[in-house]
């Protein structure tokens, strides 16, 4: 038995195995959710009998379901996610070419969310009950309810078509022109980040209020510590783990919203790829994107756990 951070990582990895099995099985079984014969559905209306038979063989529909799952999983583990039914391109290559755009967008939105959300939460908590607190809480309520893609459209209208400060649509490769790619991603990232700002502000506020109301803070106050020192040395340190956890959970939501935001800004990311492929019944691509994104989310959660354990010895000790 290992202790400390390595022990915790080992334990988390063990817990991930069943989650991975379920997640991959869900992706695999998407094909079975199709009404009727999946091979005929995939082949399309005008397919020949040979083409249907070929697809049946490619997917292995002639084998028992569990066998098919392991066959599919075996291929996926080796990076073989099949080929697009339309372009016949490798699904993995299609995804890898587009993933950087989406990841940049999500990370950018996460940074914006943290930069604005956390200070707003702290401000609201330290000035609880004041007008400022009420304004921040109200903005947070709006931020959760506003459709991010609508906000995206408004931003385009104002700052691309109106002021022409930012490009309306498109994206630039982050590897070729890093600075320009960030410039292109700014408006979509702002639209994406509103919900993160709102959620973080809310959660940081309530977590901080709870800590500031606890016994040991009362003791520190009684001992004459200034409120600034209490906030920075004791209050925030104890909500850091909460902030990190909440921020990690937002990654899941951000990939969700990115699917729509990428359509608004015509960003060639994986979100655009999956919605386009779903519309065109390009099933291997849909499965591939779902699989890659669920893996990204699972690994992000693992990273958050490890970071929490590194910074907070209590987390590692409790594992």
């Amino acid at each position, binding site marked *: 038995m290992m202790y400390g951070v390595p022990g915790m990582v080992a334990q988390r990895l063990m817990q991930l195995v*069943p*989650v*991975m*099995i*379920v*997640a991959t*099985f*869900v*992706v695999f079984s*998407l*094909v079975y*959710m*199709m*009404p009727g014969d999946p091979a005929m559905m995939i082949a399309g209306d005008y397919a020949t009998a040979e083409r249907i038979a070929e697809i049946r063989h490619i997917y292995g529909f002639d084998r028992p379901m569990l066998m098919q799952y392991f066959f599919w999983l075996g291929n996926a583990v080796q990076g073989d996610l099949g080929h697009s039914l339309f372009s016949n391109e490798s699904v993995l290559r299609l995804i890898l070419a587009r993933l950087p755009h989406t990841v940049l967008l999500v990370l950018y939105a996460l940074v914006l969310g943290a930069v604005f959300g956390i200070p707003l939460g702290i401000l609201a908590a330290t000035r609880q009950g004041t007008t400022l607190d009420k304004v921040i809480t109200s903005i947070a*309520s*709006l931020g*959760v*309810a*506003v*459709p991010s*893609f*609508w906000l995206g*459209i*408004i931003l*385009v*209208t104002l700052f691309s*078509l109106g002021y022409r400060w930012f490009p309306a649509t498109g994206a630039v490769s982050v590897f070729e022109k890093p600075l320009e790619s960030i410039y292109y991603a700014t408006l979509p990232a702002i639209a994406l980040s509103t919900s993160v700002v709102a959620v973080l502000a809310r959660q940081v506020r309530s977590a901080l209020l709870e800590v500031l109301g606890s016994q040991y803070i009362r003791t520190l106050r009684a001992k004459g510590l200034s409120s600034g020192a209490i906030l920075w040395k004791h209050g925030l340190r104890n909500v850091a783990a909460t902030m990190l956890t909440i921020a990690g959970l937002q990654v*899941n*939501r*951000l*990939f*969700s*919203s990115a*699917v*729509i935001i990428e*359509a*608004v800004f015509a960003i060639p990311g994986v*979100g655009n790829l*999956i*919605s386009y*492929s*779903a*519309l065109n*019944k390009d*099933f291997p691509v*849909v*499965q591939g*994107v*779902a699989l890659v*994104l*669920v893996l990204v*989310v*699972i690994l992000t*959660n693992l990273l958050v756990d490890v970071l929490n354990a590194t910074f907070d010895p209590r987390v590692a000790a409790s594992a």
Partner: protein
Amino acid sequence: MTDTNMTTMTRTAAAPAARATLPPPVRFRFWAWLWGDKRALISLAYLSILILAAVFAPVIAPYAPNKQNLMDLLAPPSGAHWLGTDDLGRDTLSRLIYGSYNALYAASLAVGIGVAIGVPLGVFIGFVGGWIDQVGSRIIDGVLAFPPLVLAVAVTGALGIGLTNAMIAVGFAFAPVLARTMRAQTLVVKNALYVEAATGFGASRLHLILRHILPNAIQPVIVEVTLMLAVALLAEAGLSFLSLGVQPPESSWGGMLARAYHYVEVAPEQMYAPGFAILFTALAFNTLGESIRVLLDPTIKRK
């Protein structure tokens, strides 16, 4: 004891008179609560109007939702068309009113499916425990790992494009969230003294679940369900924007935004009405959910 008091409070007047030994149930005074919580009042009033608009759309709407007036394309707001017209000359206000039906139908369908799968699953694995709970919980974790809308897009693609399928897909993504809450609540409630007492009196498992565990464990789910209506509404708008949800020529707020976006340089004002409709409705569901949370949570002091 607090638990039993809570349920009698929320169960309103339906409690049978048979429990002579217990103190008379505290009646939950709905109107007093609503009057005391202005945000809940406003949200509920707004949602009631929306439901009425959705139901009586053919009566209220000034035009048929698909009636085209090709002489009047992308018209600005006027006396004849209060919110202007879209690119096919259809009245925006009428489409907005008809769209409210699809929005509410979609939100209730998605949440209903989430409840129908999630609640029984959560109660079952929490109540039975053991390896069934272990397996069930891992399944919940596995489905929860997906970004919800990514899962919804993928499932919609599989089931076939259209509003009902899209909302089944969203409900499928909601189910594990509700199952997890319900399981946790069931674990708390099933060890309570009154459940033990009922077991001692020889109550069947089904009786225990339906009469004791479900009513006492359901409260956080009620809050979650209200908040989920907002999420489902946003998901419908998003999926319809991507043309995976409501199919043209039927009207939906998300679909209206997609069309308006095409012509944003010609008629920018067309994108405001559907957007605000989505925003206000989501806000109303969220606000109502928060109010119910405060109402049901005995640790939060109410004025």
